């Protein structure tokens, strides 16, 4: 098999040691859960509960709208106290249900029952995965059943289970692979069955030797699995870079992995598929790394969807010293939060708390055309030229320089000696292109 190193990338300080040896701890039920209705990419599901309703754990509280949409389930049993706008961690205020747990954590009837998956065919598995509200848990939150339904003219021959976890600090996927290797591989087998592929690669970065070992040991007894250790370079876990490093196949610009016969799923998604297929449990909780040098006790917690950042931080002993910065996700691609009322979504893989002394406010300077960003860009773009176009509001030029292909990994901003807010510029350009396309249609 071809492959090797993709172009570009950076080597940030990883700080994974803070939480990589901390076992996953289930977090006790908090006083309230703030559950956003928009938890998936595509159409947000439509709320079917109102203020005052009593819900059971796993009960559907929002119905999907269209194919690219999944239902949303109550993370625990309790009552709906309010439906209001709250700051969503991706950077906008969005409607959410406030659920006050009754403490019983009682499943809705029919759920949480072990069953054998032997008789399930591909369609049945896809249906279960959709009903369970599965989305990509690496952070993109794209509905899983849509990824599992490629058009006929694009056959898939390889499933990659992504355990690279290249974002600094984050260790949730790492701990899952160490603690639940059998479950992850069985979940992956359901995904493979739904796709009809024989070949599965589990990809793990070299900085997680214990995870590589446990997954290898588990995969040894099963056919069709390969475990591949990868170089440690950011963004190794980005879909396109991962596919190139493992297979040498290049996903075309504007295309999807299915164009080269590959599908990538996060290890967390594989585990959620296992829970859904074998135990009929919808996606109501996930593992979140609460880490960083600004937290008293870095940990990997199993938290209900809707747990506020404030509650998760309090569970980990609170902030250490003077408050610095709280980031949803990792420091490279995550979004800094202004409110601890922001809550854990299906895509929150970590909460990184930076200490005050670690953060700095930069004033950005003009581009000096040193070209470091060009060398760092794993998408082979020219971030320098792009950022200058956007600064001058030349969005058509940015479009012709393929700003739409930017994966927003942040490598360019990381290496920029002028401290330019590159990704912010590119997001702006993409937003302009989207609104232009919307106007044209």
């Amino acid at each position, binding site marked *: 098999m071809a492959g090797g190193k993709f172009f570009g990338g950076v080597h940030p300080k990883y700080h994974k040691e803070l939480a990589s040896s901390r076992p996953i701890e289930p977090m006790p039920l908090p006083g309230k859960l703030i559950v956003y209705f928009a938890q998936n990419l595509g159409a947000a599901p439509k709320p079917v509960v109102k203020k005052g309703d009593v819900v059971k754990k796993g009960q559907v509280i929002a119905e999907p709208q269209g194919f690219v949409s999944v239902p949303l389930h109550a993370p625990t049993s309790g009552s709906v106290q309010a439906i209001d706008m709250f*700051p969503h961690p991706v950077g*906008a*205020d969005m409607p959410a249900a406030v659920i006050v747990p009754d403490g019983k954590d009682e499943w809705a009837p029919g759920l949480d029952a072990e069953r054998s998956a032997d008789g399930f065919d591909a369609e049945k598995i896809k249906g279960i995965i959709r009903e369970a509200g599965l989305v990509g848990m690496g952070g993109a939150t794209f509905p899983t059943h849509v990824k599992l339904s490629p058009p006929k003219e694009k056959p898939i021959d390889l499933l990659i289970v992504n355990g690279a976890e290249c974002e600094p600090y984050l260790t949730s996927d790492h701990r899952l692979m160490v603690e639940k290797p059998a479950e992850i591989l069985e979940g992956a087998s359901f995904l493979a069955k739904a796709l009809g592929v024989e070949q599965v690669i589990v990809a793990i970065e070299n900085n997680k030797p214990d995870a590589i070992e446990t997954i290898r040991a588990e995969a040894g007894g099963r056919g069709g699995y390969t475990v591949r250790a990868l170089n440690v370079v950011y963004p190794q876990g980005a879909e396109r870079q991962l596919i190139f490093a493992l297979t040498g196949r290049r996903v075309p610009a504007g295309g999807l992995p299915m164009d080269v016969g590959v599908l990538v799923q996060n290890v967390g998604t594989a585990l959620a598929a296992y829970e859904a297929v074998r135990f009929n449990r919808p996606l109501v909780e996930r593992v979140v790394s609460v880490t960083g040098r600004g937290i008293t006790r870095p940990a990997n917690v199993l938290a209900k969807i809707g747990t506020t950042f404030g509650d998760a931080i309090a569970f980990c002993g609170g902030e250490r010293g003077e408050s610095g910065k709280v980031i949803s996700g990792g420091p490279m691609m995550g979004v800094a939060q*202004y409110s601890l009322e922001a809550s854990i979504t299906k895509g929150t893989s970590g909460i990184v708390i930076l200490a005050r002394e670690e953060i700095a406010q930069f004033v950005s300077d003009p581009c000096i055309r040193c070209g470091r960003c060009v060398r760092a860009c794993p998408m082979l773009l020219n971030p320098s030229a792009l950022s200058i176009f956007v600064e001058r509001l030349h969005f058509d030029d940015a479009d012709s320089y393929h700003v739409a292909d930017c994966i927003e990994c942040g490598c360019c901003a990381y290496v920029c000696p002028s401290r330019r807010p590159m990704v*912010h*510029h590119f997001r*702006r350009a993409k*937003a302009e292109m989207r609104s232009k396309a919307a106007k044209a249609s």
Partner: protein
Amino acid sequence: MLTAVIALSALALFSSFLLGIVARAFAVPVNPKVEEVEGALPGANCGGCGLPGCSELARRIAEGKADIDACPVGGESVALKIAQIMGTSFEGGAGRKIALILCNGDDQVTAKRFHYNGVRDCTSAAMLFGGDKACQYGCLGLGTCVGICPFQAMRMLPNGLPFVDPAKCTACGKCVIACPKKIIKLVSMDKRVHILCSSHDKGARVRKICRVGCIACTKCVKEAPEGAITMQDGLAVMNYDFDIPDAVAASCPMNTIHVKALESSVDETEQVTAVAGGAG
């Protein structure tokens, strides 16, 4: 030497003769009025009329496809000149307009939610939680309108709000389009009473985050002539077709409604610096 002079002169004579013939044979008929109208237009090519430039507007006016007062920048005087060229009359429109920012929540009176450290541009800032201002509707104060103004009629005041210079503003409307919060409006210069708020938030929330925001108490609605001020989704909105008495402003408990003579509005901070500069 002489040969060269004669040869070149002959060549020049021949070429000009040829050019003359070609110019007549392939002449493009141009409506002389287009050029005249274009001469009367300001020539800034600002795009305020919605067309690519002044020559395009001139062509349309000459063909009768656009109104003679279609240039928002030129206003009455240009419309009069064009009317003369076109042989029609111009009665005078609604008077000169000016851009007005419908937010008075400067850095002193409106709370901020977080420290914004991104691109210094309102549209980019609005992409992150709607901006750092606690009020989702208010001016973000990063000067996107100032940057886009083709007439240098705007500048940022130290208090974080833009100032519109009535002598320079031509009401081209570029800032109206550029503002991500859509809080800039073109109003007639002769209007004196203005509601300087765009917040649709509930009164209780407004009180928490802004000292000069509309709390939807409806006092002004009762004070003003019927229909002049209406409540629209928790915000008092003025209908500028009416003449509003100055007393309405006094009825506002939040000091949201201002009596402001737009044609003579001045940048007070600049006066202060001018005096200070004079003393030094």
